[in-house]
């Protein structure tokens, strides 16, 4: 009975390994109604049957033929291709068995012809090594599977588990009684720790993905904001054209000697203009729009925005990218200034085109040290999870344009410069 259960379990492992191995080199067929599962069950049955055959040659023939037929049903591929891959899979299986037996018998001096439980341990080791080989093939020769997307570091983490299990079983075979139990207990303890770190790593990556999604949302929101700003800007342009008519009206009132009404009207107009804010012309509608908006924002936050701008009509960048860079740079600067005393709240912004090089830089005073974590500047804002995205978005766009990004800081200042070839 134990023999049957053992054979069933080991052949199931072989079938699963087969699946991974073939997925690496061949493209799956689309089969209806769980047909693939039925075929795999058939393969399992065939392998179990082959394991019961005593003649070595017959066993090999049944396994290779069975694998070949099932693979032809499950995968696309030429006759020769599928045949060779079936042979390769079986050879790999045999090689794993031989390596384990060789290592145990000649290096660790273990008698491989032992009783059933010990023999089962050796068989499990063989199948584990087979699984390791199949996974390695899948990673380095894959065409279809997902293993190649795993970063090298995670791949090493993943490989630790089968290797640790192999080492544990080998340890159990050479030691006896309590020693074997202790070994397995320590091994499990270690595996628990490794599992904990692996999970932590996965969580970290998940958080990064979430951060990226948040960043995309922020970008989308900013685009909506600046589209509305652009509309406001056009509206203002129309209003400026109306000024001529309004002046005509003032002249009419003065000619009619209605001085008080004229004064009242002028005061009304003056108030309206003040509210509309400052107007900076750089010959670039998007830059104008952002600067106008940010000047008002800086004024609200009682931050003095000192600008150096020029004719930017030759700037060749996608509008949304320019918006992200400028808005994030200015917002970061204003937020840094907000933490300072009133006299220090000066943000210098420079947007210039020098010899086909777009140079955008901000400089502001800072209080305390700039915090860095693994070479990356950490946000000093309270809600850390939601921030730090601005800088990442800037870096992303600078990379897109093959530009350069310089961050310089001392004990009392912080300068961020972006240089993009036009």
């Amino acid at each position, binding site marked *: 009975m134990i023999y049957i259960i053992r054979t069933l379990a080991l052949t199931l492992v072989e079938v699963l390994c087969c699946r991974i191995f073939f997925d690496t080199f061949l493209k799956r067929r689309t089969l209806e109604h769980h047909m693939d599962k039925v075929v795999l069950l058939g393969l399992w049955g065939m392998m179990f049957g082959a394991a019961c055959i005593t003649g070595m040659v017959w066993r090999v023939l049944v396994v290779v033929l069975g694998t070949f037929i099932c693979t032809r049903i499950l995968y696309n591929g030429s006759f020769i291709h599928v045949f060779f891959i079936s042979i390769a899979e079986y050879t790999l299986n045999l090689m794993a068995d031989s390596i384990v037996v060789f290592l145990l018998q000649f290096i660790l001096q273990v008698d491989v012809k032992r009783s059933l439980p010990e023999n089962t341990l050796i068989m499990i080791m063989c199948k584990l090594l087979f699984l390791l080989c199949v996974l390695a093939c899948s990673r380095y020769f894959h065409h279809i599977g997902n293993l190649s997307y795993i970063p090298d570091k995670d791949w090493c983490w993943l490989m630790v588990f089968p290797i640790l299990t192999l080492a544990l079983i080998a340890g159990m075979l050479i030691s006896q009684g309590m020693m074997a139990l202790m070994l397995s207990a320590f091994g499990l303890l270690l595996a628990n720790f490794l599992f904990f770190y692996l999970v932590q790593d996965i969580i970290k990556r998940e958080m990064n993905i979430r951060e990226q999604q948040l960043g995309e949302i922020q970008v989308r929101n900013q685009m909506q904001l600046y589209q509305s700003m652009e509309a406001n800007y056009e509206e203002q342009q129309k209003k400026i054209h109306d000024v001529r008519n309004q002046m005509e009206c003032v002249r009419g009132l003065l000619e009619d000697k209605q001085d008080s009404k004229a004064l009242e009207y002028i005061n009304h107009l003056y108030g309206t203009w003040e509210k509309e804010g*400052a107007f900076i012309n750089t010959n670039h509608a998007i830059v104008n729009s952002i600067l106008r908006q940010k000047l008002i924002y800086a004024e609200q936050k009682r931050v003095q925005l000192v600008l150096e701008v020029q004719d930017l009509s030759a700037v060749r960048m996608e509008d949304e990218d320019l918006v992200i860079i400028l808005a994030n740079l200015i917002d970061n600067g204003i937020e840094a200034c907000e933490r300072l005393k009133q006299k220090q709240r000066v943000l210098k912004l420079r947007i210039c085109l020098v010899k086909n*090089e777009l140079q955008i830089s901000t400089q502001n005073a800072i209080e305390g040290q700039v915090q860095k974590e693994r070479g990356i500047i950490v946000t000093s804002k309270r809600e850390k999870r939601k921030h730090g995205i601005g800088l990442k978005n800037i870096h992303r766009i600078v990379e897109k344009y093959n530009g350069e990004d310089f961050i*310089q800081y001392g004990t009392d200042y912080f300068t961020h410069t972006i240089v993009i070839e036009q």
Partner: protein
Amino acid sequence: MRLTIGVCDDEGYFRQQITQTIQEKLAFQDGIEYTIDTFSNGQELFQNPNQIKECDVLFMDISMPGENGMQVAAKVKQQNEKIILVFITSYIDFAIEGYKINALRYVLKKDLKGALPEAVDAVCRQMKIQKKELFYDCLEGRQLLAVPDLYYIESKGHKLQLNVRDDRVYTMYGKLDELEKQLKDFRFIRIHKSFLVNYQHIRSIKNYILTLDNGVELMIPRERYRQVKEQYYELRGGLQ
């Protein structure tokens, strides 16, 4: 340091406000002596031709009757190209032509008390460099050189070659490290173990080549390139 300051505004109230703010700010600056002359229009400014030539910094209103501030400033720059201009304006309505005048600051009248002190600070920083003069014992004799006139210094063996405005070259004995220390507050960049360059004369840095205003090209070693660029953009980003 001695500063000659001009204030040109057609409105007496603003002339007085600007003058007062400058005086208040300069009261906290050590080692600065100054005189402030006020003018109500461009005509007054041009009455005495020496006035413009001696003036270090001019605070100028843009909207004035007759010739506006921009037009006056363009003429002033023709007579004194070293003069520092600060525009004082009621509205930020910068015409594209305005950028060519290359003013140090545009200050809004409604924010005079807030923004003018920063502009005065910037003027002082600029003047500190512009007016700095140093004596050097050169092989050609003792020379008094203005820091802005120094383009770059090259180390050749035990000698240093000072490359100055109008392609003048002076040679002296010394170490570049010592000169670098002496000039560290005056925006000089060490681009090479044998070259110290004045930031304000750098025209561009591209493909490991630094080009100066006078067309001289200097090679930047690969290992220093990133650092030199960082220093250069840090100085640029700080405005003036």
